[in-house]
């Protein structure tokens, strides 16, 4: 019987097979570090007198709590500054490459890896961050780990792991205009729930996935964790090879040819079986929005706030009641009438150049809603530079948006970019948890297109709701 892509990646990294219920030992090709989940791991190494086994397979950047304003001044928040200083000292002590604030290659770790060409098909990639699943878009086995595991990888370049189950997410059909990768993944999570992927590696397949750009594929894999999955994968193809080719760390010459030949084998065999399968038709999708406090609580934007009384499952009903109370929403309210205080465009989910282009195309020539703040935070310094080279920064600034430096920013509010209590956001990020974007803040997860249209109208909106919408071109984000 054939094997799935996830199984191929597993077996090609097997260092030692576990016996008697012990986990397998899996080799890690790339380990990315940031300031939040690494300090205690380095502390652990020091305490045990251990070294980093492979500094040459390790890279660090600063992202989670870096400011997006005045980055040339000392960081005002003392604890943030301490974490960042600690990462810099650890990188120096252990000989690890670091891209610090102000460096052109600084940015959200999951944006930086792919853009440097360090993420490739056939690899295992880990980082002390759950959104490491992003890198699965390349056909790499990529997943988030905890700080103990960070220490473990630093010391041994391996991880003891139990095999995952596999789930196919088949997305056939063609996405309607104005509907994006973000809407696919929000629909998948709404369908299978925040626990639906637990124990699984998801493989996204089908025509709608094949036709997506690499950046859109990253958006999908990024949010695999929100369905509870450990990782998400997309088999590499010409789109992938094209994206990797020519990047700073991409293989060259004979190495490139050898790599591509190997990468072409990284597909699930025809006769392989998955432990579970989920089917979706992209043609049925429309722009999605979350109404609750977990990413599974989402509905099409054209719908209304749901009534918990209509939810059969008691736990889900209870969760919906709590969520609506927190979100300050009344059942039956059309989503498109919900006013938004802040629009956040950015994060490892939707902070890439295509996302910025798609949003800029919507707002160009339009005026921002007067009471809505629009925060644009490129995923990396390179993304920012690219956007500036294309003049997108000016489009955002002319519109009335705030054009910021790169980082995780308001996705998780560890830096000063936070929502005030009861402030409501439309956010292109990945989590609408209570307090995620600031204590008491209320988050609606949306695509970059919906974010942009919302900034124009001031209420949750899709591009089709804008005047003159018929002249819009479909964006790929």
């Amino acid at each position, binding site marked *: 019987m054939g094997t799935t892509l996830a199984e191929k990646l597993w077996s090609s990294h097997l260092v030692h097979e576990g016996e008697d*219920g012990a986990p397998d030992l899996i080799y890690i090709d790339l380990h990315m570090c940031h300031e939040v989940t690494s300090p205690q791991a380095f502390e652990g190494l020091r305490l045990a007198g251990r070294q980093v086994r492979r500094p040459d397979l390790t*890279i660090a950047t600063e992202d989670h709590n870096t400011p997006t304003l005045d980055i040339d001044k000392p960081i005002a928040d003392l604890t*943030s500054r301490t974490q960042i200083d600690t990462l810099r000292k650890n990188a120096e002590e252990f000989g690890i490459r670091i891209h610090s604030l102000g460096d052109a290659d600084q940015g959200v770790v999951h944006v930086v890896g792919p853009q440097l060409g360090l993420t490739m098909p056939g690899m295992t990639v880990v980082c002390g*961050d759950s959104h490491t699943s992003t890198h699965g878009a390349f056909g790499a086995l990529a997943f988030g780990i905890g700080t103990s*595991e960070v220490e473990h990888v630093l010391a041994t370049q391996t991880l003891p792991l139990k095999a995952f189950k596999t789930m196919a997410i088949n997305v056939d059909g063609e996405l309607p205009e104005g509907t994006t990768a973000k809407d696919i993944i929000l629909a998948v999570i709404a369908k299978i729930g925040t626990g639906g992927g637990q124990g699984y590696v998801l493989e996204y397949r089908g025509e709608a996935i094949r036709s997506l750009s690499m950046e859109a594929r990253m958006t999908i894999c990024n949010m695999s964790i929100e369905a509870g999955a450990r990782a998400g994968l997309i088999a590499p193809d010409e789109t992938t090879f094209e994206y990797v080719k020519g990047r700073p760390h991409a293989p060259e010459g004979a190495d490139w040819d050898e790599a591509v030949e190997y990468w072409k084998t990284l597909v699930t065999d025809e006769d392989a079986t998955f432990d579970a399968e989920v089917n979706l038709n992209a043609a049925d999708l429309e722009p999605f929005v979350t109404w609750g406090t977990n990413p599974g609580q989402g509905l099409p934007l054209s719908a209304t706030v749901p009534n918990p009384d209509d939810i059969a499952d008691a736990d889900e009903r209870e969760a919906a009641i709590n969520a609506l109370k927190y979100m300050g929403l009344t059942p039956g309210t059309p989503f498109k009438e919900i006013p938004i205080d802040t629009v956040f465009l950015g994060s490892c989910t939707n902070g890439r150049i295509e996302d910025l282009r798609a949003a800029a195309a919507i707002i160009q020539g339009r005026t921002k809603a007067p009471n809505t703040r629009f925060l644009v935070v490129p995923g990396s310094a390179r993304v920012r*530079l690219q956007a500036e080279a294309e003049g997108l920064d000016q489009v955002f600034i002319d519109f009335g948006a705030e054009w910021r430096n790169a980082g995780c920013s308001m996705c998780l509010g560890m830096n000063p970019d936070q929502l005030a209590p009861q402030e409501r956001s439309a956010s292109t990020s990945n989590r609408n*948890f209570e*307090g995620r974007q600031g204590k008491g803040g209320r988050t609606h997860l949306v695509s970059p297109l919906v974010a942009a249209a919302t900034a124009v109208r001031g209420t949750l909106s899709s591009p089709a709701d804008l005047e003159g919408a018929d002249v819009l071109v479909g964006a790929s984000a």
Partner: protein
Amino acid sequence: MEKITTHTGVGVPLRRSNVDTDQIIPAVYLKRVTRTGFEDALFAAWRGDEDFILNQPAYTHGSVLVAGPDFGTGSSREHAVWALKDYGFKVVLASRFADIFRGNSGKQGLVAGVVSQENIELLWKLLETEPGKEITVSLEDRTVTCGELTVPFEIDDYVRWRLMEGLDDIGLTLQNEQAITDFEATRGSWRPTTLPAKTEPKVEIEAARPVQ
């Protein structure tokens, strides 16, 4: 790591499903660089509410958390486990855990036991009827006992063994160091290394300024 075979302590009923790691410890507390001292951060957003379960004197010194389904979802932050441990919890019971949280728990010596939702409900009732009631968790027998009630819990065999032996992960792995070295010799030359560093040309990044 401390060996655990059985633990007895006050049970705390947390009647909430989907308690994600942002609820267990909000991101603002992740800025610390130490490994201990996170007890004040546990459930920080709820601790201000006097009705919150841990603010009720009978439960304040609880060490066995009996939680709703899908406990520990969301962010991979291991601080969630540290915060629970620093507060004094030794065991968390739920009908379903997020994978990463459960993995982190095993590595840090926090027992994450899977109990059927039906039995969780029974435990909740007992603990609410008699606040401050103790629960005994036996890793040896894989059982949870609360008064007259004894119910089974599930835990991965390997994790259970490690908890009972108090074994450190890195030490275990380094027993296979030769296998790691042998594997490294087989890796294809196309596989990237971060060093020496390659980048696009360095460019000055202009600092964004606040909008007036």
